[in-house]
C-alpha cells in the first residue's frame, strides 16, 4: 500500500513538472495587463484580439502548413524508403539505417546551418527552403517508425498473394499496408509534432516575411511577447488535447487496436 501511494506521488510529481508551465501560460492568456509579469485581472480580450491580429494568424497558418506539408511529404518519401530498405540485404540495411540516423544525431543547429549554407549558395531563402529543411529532418522519424512494422509483417502472405496472381500493388494494399499503417500513422504524427515544435532549423532557413510561431516568439521575446500569442497557444493546446483524447478513446481507437 505504501508502495502504491509512493508511486502515485511520484506520478503526480512528474505530471506537475510537465504541465505546470502550461498551466502558467493558460492563466497568463487571461491576464488583463500589457506586460506578462503583472496580474491585472481576468479578461478575454486577448482571445478577441487574436482573430483580428493578421500577423499572428498568418504565422499560425504558416506553421500549420509547414508541419502538415512536410509531414505528409516526409511520410510518403519515408514509407517508400522503408519499403526499399526492407528489401535490401542485411549489410546494406545496416548502412542505410546508420545513414538515416545521422540527421537525428546531428544537432538542430548544425542541420539548420548547413542547409542555410547550401541554400544561400544556390538559391534564395523562402518558404520552399523551410519546407525542404523540415522534410529532411522529418523523414528519419517516419522510416524509423515504419521499418519495425515492416519487419514484423509477414512476407510469406505477400508472396503467397503474388503467387496466386495478385498484382504487387494490389497485394501491397491488401496485405502489407494494413500491417504497417499504425507505423506510418505514428511516423506522420511524430514528424508533424517535431516540425511544429522546431525552432532552430526554421530560424536558419526561412526567407523574409515568413514566420512560424516559434520564430515569431523568438524575435518578440526581447521586447515582450504579445499576450495574443498565449491565447493562441492555449487554444492550440486544448485542440490537441481534444483531438488526441478522441483518437485514444473515440470510436476509431477501437479499430486501431484491433
Amino acid at each position, binding site marked *: 500500500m505504501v508502495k502504491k501511494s509512493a*508511486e502515485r506521488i*511520484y506520478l503526480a510529481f512528474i*505530471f506537475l513538472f*510537465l504541465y*505546470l*508551465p*502550461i498551466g*502558467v*501560460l493558460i492563466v497568463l492568456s487571461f491576464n488583463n495587463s500589457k506586460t506578462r509579469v503583472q496580474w491585472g485581472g481576468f479578461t478575454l480580450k486577448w482571445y478577441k484580439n487574436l482573430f483580428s491580429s493578421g500577423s499572428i494568424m498568418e504565422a499560425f497558418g504558416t506553421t500549420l502548413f509547414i508541419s502538415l506539408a512536410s509531414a505528409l511529404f516526409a511520410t510518403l518519401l*519515408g514509407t*517508400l*524508403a522503408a*519499403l*526499399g*530498405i526492407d*528489401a*535490401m540485404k542485411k549489410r546494406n540495411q545496416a548502412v*542505410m539505417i546508420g*545513414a538515416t*540516423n*545521422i*540527421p*537525428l*544525431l*546531428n*544537432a*538542430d*543547429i*548544425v542541420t539548420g*546551418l*548547413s542547409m542555410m*549554407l*547550401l541554400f544561400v*549558395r544556390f538559391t534564395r531563402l523562402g518558404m520552399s527552403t523551410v519546407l525542404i*529543411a523540415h*522534410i*529532411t529532418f522529418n523523414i528519419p522519424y517516419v*522510416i*524509423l*517508425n515504419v521499418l*519495425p512494422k515492416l519487419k514484423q509483417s509477414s512476407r510469406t502472405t505477400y508472396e503467397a498473394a503474388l503467387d496466386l496472381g495478385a498484382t504487387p500493388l494490389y497485394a501491397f494494399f491488401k496485405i502489407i499496408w494494413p500491417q504497417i499503417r499504425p507505423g506510418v500513422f505514428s511516423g506522420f504524427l*511524430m514528424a508533424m*509534432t517535431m516540425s511544429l*515544435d522546431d*525552432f*532552430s532549423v526554421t530560424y*536558419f532557413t526561412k526567407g523574409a516575411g515568413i514566420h512560424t510561431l*516559434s520564430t515569431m*516568439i*523568438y524575435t518578440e*521575446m526581447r521586447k515582450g*511577447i504579445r499576450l495574443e*500569442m*498565449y491565447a493562441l*497557444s492555449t487554444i492550440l493546446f486544448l485542440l490537441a488535447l481534444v483531438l*488526441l483524447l478522441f*483518437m*485514444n478513446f473515440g470510436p476509431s*481507437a477501437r479499430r*486501431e487496436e484491433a
Partner: protein
Amino acid sequence: MRNVKRQLLAGPYLLWMAGFILLPVVMILYYAFTTTSGHFTLLNISSIFASIHLKSLFLSLKLAVICTGVCLALSYPLAMILNNMKEKSQGFIVFIFILPMWMNFMLRILAWKLLLSNNGVINTILEGLGLPVLDVLNTPAAVVFCMVYDFLPFMILPIYNAMSRIQQDIIEAAGDLGAGSVTIFFKIIVPLTMPGVVSGIIMVFVPALTSFAISDLLGGGKVLLIGNVIEQAFMQEYNWNLGSGLSLVLMIFVIASMALMSSKGEEGGAGVW
C-alpha cells in the same frame, strides 16, 4: 529472393539525402577548411582548442551528462510504474508525454522563467512557508533544469516502449524458477530494456549537448555553451568559417560518442513509440 525492384523505392530518399544531407555537410566542410578569402586553413578546426571554446565545450558536456543522467533516473522508475498500471493503452501514455510539445517550447521555457525568477511564483510560495528562496535563474542549474523538462519525454517513451514489450511469461517463468524480484530486475528487465535506454540516452544527450536556445533564454547571458558559441559565430560575428569549423568538431564529437553508445545497444534501436 530479395526483390531488386523493390529496393528502388528507396531511390527518391537516397536522392533527397544526397541533396539535403550530404551536400550541406560538404558545405560545412568547405567553410570549415577555408579562410574568409577562400584559402585552405586548419585554424577554424584547431580553434576548438582556444581556451574559451574548450571551456564552453566542457560546460556543454557537463550539463548534457547531468541532464541525461537526471532524465534516466526520473524515467526508469516512471516507465516501470506506467507499465504496471492497469491502463494499458500505450497510445494514451505516449499522448500524455507528447501533448506538452504542442505548446511552443519557447513559451514553456519562458513560463519556467516566470516561475523560477526571484519574485516568481515558486519563491513566493517558499517564502510564505518560511523556507529559503531559490536563486537558480541565470545559472547553469536553471539551464539543466529546463533541458530535463524539455527532453524528458524522449527518455521516457523509448524506455516505456521497451518495457511494455517484455512478455509477462518470461518474468513469471523466472519467478517460478526461484528468482527474486531483484534478480528478475537485473537479469531480465534491465537487459531487455537496454535498447530503449540507449536510444533514450541518444535522444536526450545530443540535443542537450548542442542546445543554444535554452541557455540563451534561461542563462541570463552568463552560460555560454558550445551551441551559443557556434550560433554567435554565424549570426553575430559573421564568421561562417569559424562557425563551420566548430560545427564540424561538434558533429564528429557527437557521432563518435553515439557510435560508441549504440554499439552497446541493439541495432536501429531508436524506436521512440
